[in-house]
């Protein structure tokens, strides 16, 4: 087996016979960032969720290995371990992803205990430091922190759990431009320092161009173009990619 942390072959996700995403090949290695771009409804988020087996009521075929776990055939227990500890999902709307009645610190502590992390306090403190958040935030409820803080907390949670892979679904699109830069900065630094594999779903080509090594362009559930980010974004070969690029302000 290769050393890719995410590896998908002939992935096909369909709902009731209608194919919503089809990805012939997707590899993300350690320390690498791959971005899936495309407009709303192009199947990019579905692809991301299917990699962790999180699509509900969907039929998935093909082969998916994440951190060496065969996602489509793994036991629920193996999947739970994978999702929590090794592959983390960062969602689009950071506030919506945090249970409103739970303090951030309580949430993180429970997650760490659930996955048997030892030395919980130290781990929490270090993870918060890594994403440049004050530890005081752990005492707050989600509605008491900003969107950027909430998103960085989500990343801190992933790090605290020891994630090797971060799958991020539009991680910055719900944030202000300045806050976006913070979050992207944190992601980029962690990727370098920790050799994280990063799979990013975004329609924000400006963001993608600053962080991604390789790009997959999806349209209507199919990959229309893929390759190194520099090439795809500089010399798009598919008309749809050109359209996306021209739509940039």
């Amino acid at each position, binding site marked *: 087996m290769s050393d890719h942390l995410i590896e998908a072959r002939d992935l096909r996700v369909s709902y009731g016979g209608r194919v919503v995403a089809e990805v012939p090949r997707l590899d993300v290695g350690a320390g690498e960032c791959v971005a899936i771009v495309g407009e709303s409804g192009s199947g990019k988020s579905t692809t991301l969720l299917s990699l962790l087996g999180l699509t509900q009521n969907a039929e998935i075929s093909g082969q998916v290995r994440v951190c060496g776990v065969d996602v489509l055939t793994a036991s629920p227990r193996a999947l739970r371990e994978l999702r929590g500890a090794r592959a983390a999902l960062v969602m689009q*709307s950071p506030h919506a992803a945090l249970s409103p*009645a739970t303090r951030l610190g309580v949430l993180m502590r429970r997650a760490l205990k659930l996955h048997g992390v030892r030395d919980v306090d130290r781990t929490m403190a270090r993870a918060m430091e890594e994403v440049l958040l004050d530890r005081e935030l752990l005492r707050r409820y989600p509605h008491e922190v900003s969107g950027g803080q909430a998103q960085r907390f989500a990343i801190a949670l992933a790090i605290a759990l020891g994630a090797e892979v971060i799958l991020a679904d539009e991680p910055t699109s719900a944030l202000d431009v300045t806050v976006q830069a913070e979050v992207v900065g944190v992601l980029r630094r962690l990727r370098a320092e920790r050799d994280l594999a990063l799979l990013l779903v975004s329609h924000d080509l400006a963001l993608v161009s600053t962080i991604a090594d390789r790009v997959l362009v999806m349209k209507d559930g199919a990959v229309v173009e893929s390759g190194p980010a520099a090439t795809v974004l500089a010399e798009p070969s598919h008309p749809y990619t050109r359209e996306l690029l021209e739509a940039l302000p």
Partner: protein
Amino acid sequence: MTTETRTPETQPLRRTLPRIPDRFAAFGAVLIVVVVLAAVLAPWLAPYPVDDPRPLERLLPPSGAHWFGTDQVGRDVLTRILYGGRTSLFIAVAVLAVSALAGVTLGVVAGYAGGWIRDVIMRVTDVFLAFPALLLSLALAVVLQPGVNTVILAIAVTWWPWYTRLAASMAASIATRPYVDAARCLGVPAPLIILRHVLPNSLTPVLVQLSLDAGGVILTSAALSYLGLGAQEPTAEWGLMVQQGQTLFTTNWWVVTFPGLAILVTAFAFNVLGEGLRNALDPRRAVK
């Protein structure tokens, strides 16, 4: 229920709950406090012993010695009302506690799990809802020994399905929220997700429903007692007092009127408070 600390650390549940939102609801809350205090402090407030028939003082009209008069066996009506509040409020609290506990538990499981689990739970719920509530309560109360516990059981049996429905619909919508996905994604087992995320975030409308229902339960228990199926002599209970006094209405109006007013005021107070809470928690106003 009356005080509200406004530190930045307030919990979200409390954050969305009162400050009592409007004067009408605040009035209801004050009334409830008065009724509860009167019931709790009955042994100290009551001017006479609760069960102290004095045949020579039968059916005395309201006076300085007996503010609300005396009943057909010469007991002080005010005293009986104060003690009766204990019975009625205890019944209301017990019924709602049992109903909410059973109903909400089943509801969040049904709402979160979906599929056949939800179908089974909701169909059972529907069966209970298919009977007219009062009729089902009556049937149960007739079969069992009359008494306070019977009233509680008989009403709770007809009351829990509403909480199941309410909690199920809340839980079903919360189950699709991203933070539940996130928890699932973190590998949190389903029972823990229900307990820690679905349940606490489903509770707000349940609280509103509880305060709206308290009045209804008191009325229903009064109705059962009125029909002789609830609290029995010498227990003081408002419905029972109304029943015993009704034949005297034309001649000795105070025997039936004052306990009737107690029922009315309490039910009314819970209703306006519940209504106020519902308005305060209306998502169109609460969204920020």
